[in-house]
């Protein structure tokens, strides 16, 4: 049964072999490129499993080296996995960007009302003073006008 590590190894081998040519590779080189910690024996087992599943052909193998030929099935699966991995990375990046955008909006939503409030307060005080001044001016004018009219009328009809 092939696990995630096996597919990872298949991907590494596929990426190393150019134009489907046979590949000579050191076992240590493959092991250094795998994230998971596996021994040479485990690697041998995985490579054999890949050969059994018709994904690879072992042309030569000794204690330190492999000469491998990647089969069409293996190439296809490696290609599919690569595309899936790229899609997953792109989706993760998109999701991260969306989360960042959401966080940014939330921050903005928290900070914006305060600023508006602040601005509103400032506006209110300024508007109040202006209104107050205008009201005072208009009411004093009207009061004076009414008083003048009354005085005028009293003097006319006297």
């Amino acid at each position: 049964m092939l696990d995630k590590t096996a597919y990872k190894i298949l991907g590494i081998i596929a990426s190393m072999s150019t134009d489907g040519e046979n590949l000579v590779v050191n076992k240590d080189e493959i092991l250094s490129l795998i994230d998971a910690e596996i021994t040479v024996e485990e690697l041998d087992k995985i490579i054999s499993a890949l050969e059994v599943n018709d994904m690879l052909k072992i042309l030569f193998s000794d204690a330190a080296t492999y000469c491998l030929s990647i089969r069409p099935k293996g190439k296809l699966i490696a290609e599919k996995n690569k595309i899936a991995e790229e899609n997953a990375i792109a989706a993760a990046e998109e999701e991260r960007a969306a989360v960042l955008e959401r966080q940014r909006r939330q921050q903005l939503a928290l900070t914006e009302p305060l600023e508006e409030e602040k601005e509103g307060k400032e506006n209110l005080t300024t508007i109040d003073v202006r209104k107050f001044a205008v009201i005072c001016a208009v009411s004093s004018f009207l009061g004076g006008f009414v008083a003048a009219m009354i005085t005028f009328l009293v003097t006319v009809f006297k």
Partner: protein
Amino acid sequence: MVLGKKEKALMNIIYNKASRSQNGQCLVSPLDLLTKIPYGVEFKETELEETLNQLVLDNYFDCSKAKTPSGDIMYCITLKDNGISFLRDKRVSRRKLILRIITTILIAALSFSLKEILNLIFG
């Protein structure tokens, strides 16, 4: 099967390398092969692949070209029936040659002695 001088030299090198492993396989670079060819044999770099192909056609071994991640070419060679019996065939053909030489010498000696006997009788 009769091999030429170049083919024999190349086959000797490949047999020595491949026969060390259990399954008659070896991984060898063109440079490895060329450096081990005896100075007495005139062997050009361009003739290597042609000679290998001839030996493949003669069913001595199976040869696959492979590349390392750094781009160096390597030959993955697996001995076949004729290749596995190469040393034995070589010994047998040498023994046959020696026998043939001995037989020739013996026949020559016999002829000479017969001539001498006939000379003594009728001469």
